[in-house]
């Protein structure tokens, strides 16, 4: 049986004193799946992520991660999240210390921490930045540092909120390259950059008006013109034009 990394059932959430943002959400994500989350501004994508990570507490419903219910406020190093505003995530005076921040809080030993920092930095190709202060780096470099800070905790579920905003095409490509090497991790990515979702994900979920409106393969969901336009979205160019081209673009269609 495939492990259910994330299971959400009849989830409801509203910010204090407001109408519900999420209503009756049900969702199962299996181990190793790469899932893209799309939907307009304000659909509740970020809110859903904050619920999954236990930062917010559901108004109703259950969320289980790795078969254990999420405890609001508790620290779970197996779930890593990269925020939309990466700069908020970088708090230490040097890149090295910043990547080490998570492992330190996990109570790991000095040696293990250094090993993890090195590994993560090598994977992202930022070894040469380790001694620099993170807030002096460019937007693209900062995003890679934030990613390393999470990877060093060796999470099994990796959540990314709008990872490509502000990135130029070079860094966007590099990010796609790094993500496509993460066979063993479960990915959950929210983005307005549909081409990016198309290149990194094997499943797409469309969130709008507080509910999940569609869930399926990228071609099924994002290639469906009626569905996309109904929700204020557009079929990505590479899907609308040639289906064959797209089959080639997706890295692991068999997932």
């Amino acid at each position, binding site marked *: 049986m495939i492990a259910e990394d994330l299971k959400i059932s009849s989830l409801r959430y509203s910010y204090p004193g407001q109408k519900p943002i999420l209503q009756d959400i049900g969702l199962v994500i299996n181990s190793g799946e790469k899932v893209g989350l799309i939907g307009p501004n304000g659909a509740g994508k970020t809110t859903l992520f904050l619920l999954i*990570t236990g930062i917010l507490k559901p108004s109703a419903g259950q969320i289980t991660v790795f078969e254990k219910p999420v405890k609001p*406020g508790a620290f779970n190093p197996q779930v890593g999240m990269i925020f939309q505003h990466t700069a908020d995530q970088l*708090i230490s005076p040097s890149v090295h*210390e910043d990547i080490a921040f998570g492992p330190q809080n996990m109570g790991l030993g000095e040696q293990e921490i250094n090993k993890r920092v090195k590994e993560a930095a090598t994977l992202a190709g930022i070894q040469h930045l380790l001694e620099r202060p993170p807030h002096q780096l460019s937007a693209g470099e900062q995003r890679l540092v934030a990613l390393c800070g999470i990877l060093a905790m060796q999470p099994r579920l990796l959540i990314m909120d709008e990872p490509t905003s502000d990135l130029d095409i070079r860094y966007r490509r590099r990010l796609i390259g790094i993500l496509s090497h993460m066979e063993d991790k479960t990915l959950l990515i929210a983005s307005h950059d549909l081409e990016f979702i198309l290149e990194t994900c094997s499943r797409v979920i469309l969130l709008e008006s507080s509910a999940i409106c569609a869930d399926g393969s990228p071609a099924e969901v994002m290639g469906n013109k009626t569905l996309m336009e109904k929700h204020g979205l557009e079929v990505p160019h590479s899907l609308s034009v040639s289906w064959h081209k797209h089959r080639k673009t997706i890295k692991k269609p068999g997932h």
Partner: protein
Amino acid sequence: MIDKGYINKTAAQSILGRWEARLKLPGLMLLIFTFAFIRDLRLLPFLVLAAALTYSFSGLSLKHLIKRMRMPGFFLVAIALILPFWSGQTILWQLGPLALRLEGLLALLVITVKFFSILILVIALFGTTTLPQMAIALRAIRIPWLITDLLLFTYRYIYQLLSDLNRMRIAARLRGFRANSFNAIKPLAFITGTMLVSSHNQSERVFQAMTLRGYGNTKQPLPIFSPIPADFILLAVYILLSALLILFQFII
């Protein structure tokens, strides 16, 4: 800790730069406080000498010192105007009601020398110590975590907020805003308010991101304290120097 959080290479490699911060901070602070307590005119040359020698151990250039030298502020200028004319009995020179007095003039000399000697020490200290090293040293001398954590986080955001503020002012300028009359107070207050609101929103996101990486999960240990004998020798030198100065000031 020079602008932007870097200390330059030669400063980091200098005698002061390599001195373990947890001993350097107490050592130099002791000398700074000793300077502040000095009143004896005869000791002034030694203050200047000690400050100059310390600075020469810092690997910082003379140009850096001159750039960092601040002109004395409002209060010092006020005192410089009051002291020589109103303090003391020995009149050196008189013009109508205005009398230049020796005691006041000497007191002003003491103040000025102390001000600049301390300033030189401060520039040497902070020019060779990064803020994170400072925070560790402060924690080691039992300054409450509230202050040290606040210090580190505040420092982390200062340059960002300064550049945010700068961008906001540029944007306002492009829409014709000129801070050239008292009416400017309203837009300036709005800009400040905007900065406070966006800082607050950001702080919420920062806190969430930190929580997810286990902030508060374990107590951050102090890095291992591994001083070499030279660290203690330097400390001893500064303790001795301070002790001699105090001895001369208060006993002899």
